[in-house]
């Protein structure tokens, strides 16, 4: 099939995937807290409600920047499955995240601004890992595109177990799960009052939510890269990783940003870096 079709399918279906995932997440979290929890489709109802509401624009720049955020997130996914060079995808992924920081940073409110600063710290912690991960995958499979990796004769996961473990760790940041939800939080009870989204309302917040759904789908696609021989196996692995994240989310408190930065870099260096180094040495 034409890669363009994959790209279009991603743009259309990723929000459905992300929304359903969020719905399952909310039910599972509620059950872990021995609550009944919302209906499965609650994230979609919430999004609909957000889109209906008035958006209070603190700065006219926020909306274009957030559109850039959601647009580049969708573009990252589309480029990923559309067969663009993986390293390039990693940079667009970082760029998409940067748009959110910019949007929050243009608002002259202390909560939003401090949230934006924390998000930058988080980007600093997470992005080096994603670049390292995609580079390692390209190296192992001798391919540079998504389709190339999928059709490669080498299965990635057995070669890069350390990187996969490190991915599980870093995904906590990207999925905005406790203990690493330091710049934003789904439950606003923290010192930053929902951090960088604190001054976004109505459809602006809906954009952030949409972008997060795309982000979840991109992370799922990354896991599929590790299990490149079988897409269902990759999705299953993502489900396992996500379940672990939800469990950790419900079993820890929030960490401070110093710990997040230190621990993420330690994990990136030790697990992922060590894994890549071992591959080179054992060759």
């Amino acid at each position, binding site marked *: 099939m034409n890669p363009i079709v994959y790209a279009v399918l991603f743009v259309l279906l990723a929000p459905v995937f992300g929304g359903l995932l969020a719905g399952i997440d909310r039910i599972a*979290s509620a059950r*872990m*807290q*021995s*609550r009944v929890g919302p209906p499965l489709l609650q994230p979609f109802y919430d999004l609909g409600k957000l889109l209906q509401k008035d958006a209070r624009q603190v700065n006219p720049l926020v909306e274009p920047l957030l559109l850039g955020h959601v647009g580049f997130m969708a573009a990252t996914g589309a480029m990923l499955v559309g067969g663009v060079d993986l390293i390039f995808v990693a940079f667009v992924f970082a760029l998409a995240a940067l748009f959110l920081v910019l949007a929050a940073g243009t608002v002259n409110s*202390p*909560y939003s*601004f*401090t949230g934006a600063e924390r998000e930058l710290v988080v980007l600093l912690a997470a992005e080096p890992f994603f670049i390292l991960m995609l580079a390692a995958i390209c190296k192992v499979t001798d391919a540079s595109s998504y389709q190339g990796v999928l059709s490669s004769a080498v299965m990635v996961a057995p070669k890069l177990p350390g990187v996969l473990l490190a991915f599980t760790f870093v995904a906590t940041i990207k999925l905005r799960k*406790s*203990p690493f*939800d*330091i710049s934003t*939080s789904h*439950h*606003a*009870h*923290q*010192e930053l*009052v929902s951090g960088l989204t604190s001054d976004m309302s109505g459809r602006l917040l809906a954009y952030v939510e949409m972008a997060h759904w795309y982000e979840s789908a991109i992370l799922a696609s990354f896991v599929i890269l590790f299990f490149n021989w079988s897409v269902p196996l990759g999705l299953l692995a993502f489900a396992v990783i996500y379940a672990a994240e939800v469990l950790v989310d*419900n*079993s*820890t*408190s*929030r*960490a*401070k*940003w110093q*710990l997040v930065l230190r621990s993420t870099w330690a994990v990136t260096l030790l697990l992922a870096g060590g894994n890549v180094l071992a591959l080179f040495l054992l060759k």
Partner: protein
Amino acid sequence: MKRTIIPFGPQHPVLPEPLVLDLILEDERVVDAVPTIGYIHRGLEMMVERVEYTEMGFVAERICGICSFMHGMGYCVSLEAIMNVEVPERARWLRIIWAEISRVQSHLLWLGLGADAFGFENLFMHCWRMREEILDIFEKTTGGRIIHSVNRIGGVKRDVSDAELAAIVVKLEELGKAFEKTANVFGKDPSIRHRLSGVGVLSADDARAVDAVGPMARASGVVMDTRLSGTYGYDQVDFEPVTETAGDCLARVVVRMREVQQSIGLVRQAVEKMPKGEGMPLENKPRGNPVGETYTRLEQPRGEVLYYVKANGTKNLERFRARTPTFANIPAMIKLVRGCDLADVPNIILTIDPCISCTER
């Protein structure tokens, strides 16, 4: 260095109470905090001009929704002292039982809020789930979950049957066992230690210098517990005040967790020692109007509360003043917030167990 001013409150989700702290930040470090209260000043003290002393107890109860029983009790105890009314023995024991149950309730509520402040939603739900069972006990015995309205000047309005009391003790002991597991999470979880251990340290000398009260002072190693003076029937139960020495946020959590178990033990003791039987006198009605003044001190869940009541022989009191524990702990809170990280501010503020509604009366 860049200075930021973060307006913490009055509608801040971390504290469900309208306190404003203007936090002056240098990077992520708080260099100063300026408090403002008064968003919900209700003038309850002013209401003595209008409400007669017989009904003022209900107003006093509404000073706070968490320690409402103790506020009602404190008011009634003050008036009993002024009017020389002897409280029947069973009523006095019932007051102790309710007071200690409400301490358990308050600490569980606070532990939940504390967990929420450092982002541990699951623990929050568990604490509040346990608290719900205590609210059920209150609804069964007093008729109200939050506002109990059982205290009257000279006694209590409702009796609790001996069978019911025995059932309450069994229920509380079960709860105590279940609470052990939650306490284990608070004490052992590494992510909680990361957030609380060594954060907001108040030394014993500082605690004395800023006149901290209650668990705040006890966590710093200051032995102060108004119950020790043995008034209002506390001389007939055995207990040791809970103290910790570390003085940090974790110590304040631990003090409250140990006090939950202590209070459950006190309820058991009270039920064992109180006179048994149906139809015992519960209330000695006062006669006439009060003249005189008195100071009453009670150990509330949050610390020592002090009431000053002055009556001048009319049906309306001349002055009713409540110095709530939060009011006494605000200086300590401001002291601790200076110099901490922004991320630690919610934990520090919450570990004093702030109740701004109390403070503003």
